[in-house]
């Protein structure tokens, strides 16, 4: 809960709830709260500039490098699963419950499916959900947050109350309830449901950021120039939020991975989709540990952790870049020495 680092947005009500809830809902995000990369006051160019700065950051920060490497690895696997695993992940064509061998690197399930093929093919739906929710939730949050700040008045009040209410309703139980009415949510439904329920935290951050800009000169200048509201929102306000948006995307994607895997694990996903969460569901229901197939549970879980770590490390790295106080001491010293030269 990085309250101290957060410039309090004007007109923020009930500081307690907002920060405490942020803490509870998004522990990683709290490390990645308003990353406030030094954004400067400029308009349109800021976006491109801070993106370039992020590019440089990825290569110079070790956490960012590891995070990026993990993500790239999984994206490649998700794009070309057929190149890596030739087996059909669903086909129950092998002897059951085999131990790992050169033919079956991770053995086979108690249905006779190749576990390695399942892990490889299971990457794609997870990534689709992660990126789908990351994008969708961030866009929804952006529209609602910026609209609330820009329109002000009654609109702001209404949107704010909706955001706050959604923020405090316990998300995972809500997702379980929705999932149980749906009876087997496929990838698209999963994306829609998770995104529809998890945008509120980001919306709040973005609204605060937009509010803090309200009286800045470059916005007044745009108004005086006679720009239309849509232009001001898209070309002047949103580019200043690039770093916040990236952080929000990473957090939402991470939570989508965890939420969807958990839902699939308890059998609320579509059991016919091969995905890490559904693998865990089938493995637990067939007592994989007790029947000597630990890899059936361990490997998909490790994949979830690795993918989640990719998102979290990137987010954490961006936070360090934005808030130098959090950087490891040694590298700070090195930077100072370099600057002195």
């Amino acid at each position, binding site marked *: 809960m990085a309250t101290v680092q957060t410039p309090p947005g004007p007109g923020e009500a009930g500081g307690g709830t907002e920060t405490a809830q942020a803490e509870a809902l998004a522990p*990683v995000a*709290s490390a990645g709260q308003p990353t406030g990369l030094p954004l400067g006051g400029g308009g349109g160019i800021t976006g491109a500039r801070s993106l370039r700065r992020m590019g440089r950051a990825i290569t110079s920060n070790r956490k960012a490098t590891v995070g990026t490497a993990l993500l790239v690895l999984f994206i490649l696997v998700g794009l070309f699963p057929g190149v890596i695993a030739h087996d059909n992940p669903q086909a129950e064509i092998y002897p059951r419950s085999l131990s790992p061998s050169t033919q079956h690197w991770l053995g086979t399930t108690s249905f006779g499916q190749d576990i390695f093929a399942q892990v490889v093919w299971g990457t794609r739906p997870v990534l689709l959900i992660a990126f789908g929710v990351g994008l969708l939730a961030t866009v929804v949050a952006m529209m609602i947050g910026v609209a609330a700040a820009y329109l002000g008045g009654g609109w702001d009040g209404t949107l704010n109350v909706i955001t706050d209410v959604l923020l*405090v309703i316990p998300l995972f*139980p809500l997702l*379980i309830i929705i999932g149980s009415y749906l009876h087997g949510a496929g990838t698209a439904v999963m994306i829609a449901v998770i995104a529809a329920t998890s945008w509120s935290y980001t919306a709040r951050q973005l609204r605060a950021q937009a509010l803090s800009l309200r009286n800045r000169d470059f916005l007044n200048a745009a108004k005086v120039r006679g720009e239309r509201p849509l232009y001001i929102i898209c070309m002047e306000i949103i580019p200043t939020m690039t770093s916040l948006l990236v952080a929000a995307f990473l957090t939402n994607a991470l939570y989508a991975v965890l939420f969807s895997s958990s839902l699939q694990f308890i059998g609320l996903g579509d059991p016919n989709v091969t995905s890490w969460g559904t693998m*865990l569901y089938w493995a637990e229901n067939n007592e994989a*540990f007790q029947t000597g197939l630990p890899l059936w549970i361990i490997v998909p879980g490790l994949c979830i*952790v690795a993918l989640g770590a990719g998102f979290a490390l990137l987010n*954490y790295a961006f936070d360090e870049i934005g808030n130098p106080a959090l950087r490891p001491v040694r590298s700070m010293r090195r930077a100072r020495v370099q600057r002195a030269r």
Partner: protein
Amino acid sequence: MRFVLRRTGFFLLTLWVALTLNFVLPRLMPGNPALAIIGKFKGGISPQAVKVLEAQFGVGTHQNVLAQYFSYLGNTATFKFGVSLTTQPGASVGRIVLDAVPWTLGLVGVTTVLAFILGTGIGILAAWRRGGALDGLMPPIFVIMTVIPYFWIGLVLILVFGVKLKLLPYFFTYNFSMTPGFNLAFIGNVAEHAILPAFTLLITTIGIWILTMRNTMITTLAEDYVRMARAKGLPGHRIMLDYAARNAILPNLTGFAMSLGFVVGGAILIEEVFNYQGVGYLLLQAVGNDDYPLMQALFLLITVAVLLAILISDVATAILDPRTRGAG
């Protein structure tokens, strides 16, 4: 106090939204879920239960939606949650829920307090020994710890300590062969069954406390009053605890008040993995059995717990930190 009134208003509003979600969700879904259950358990449901279903999901009644809505609100306000359909057919939902609550409160409550105390302590030390081994190692490790799905850690612990080493039990809240009673053997058995789930919860939640405490503490350590304390030559532990930590702990304290609200519904998957008879396990049983009345009551309970905790933490913050009062 205007602030408290406003927060209470918000509390009531959110409660109403949760109630309405309970009412609206099944009606929004493609194909009425209640019809599906009645079909599935043809004749297996008591007439009384069918009546409950009718009231709650609007099947086969001639009331319009609005009348159904108000009778649903009325029932909930008077704690009439109906009877369980399938989990324990015919039993009162309120009774079933009340039986599960103590198990969850015991397991998750104790673990939450433990995680808070340990995590805050480690966070203080990590920030104080800035650049030390603890400080360098902790953040990346705990960032990764917070991305591990709870249930998967539980599964791995089961594999290591339960299946392989056969050290600890990992099924149910106590040994089936024992009769529950207030004696040492039974309590010991319950405690033994709680170790693995508690440990799972501890290692997955402690990271948040460490990270937030460390980060706020670092900011506090740069304050002038800390420098002043150093200049006065105060002993290190006094500066660390009385000057820096005392001022840095507020966010962690409000976070702690909040997390108490998540005690009731925060360990759903851990309870599931260990078949621990708490609220979360019950919720998933209700979900698995399409026991909608039980499911709705549990969702409401979990939401109310969270809301109460938020209300309390808001008020506590306002009392502890006068600065937040102005904003509200």
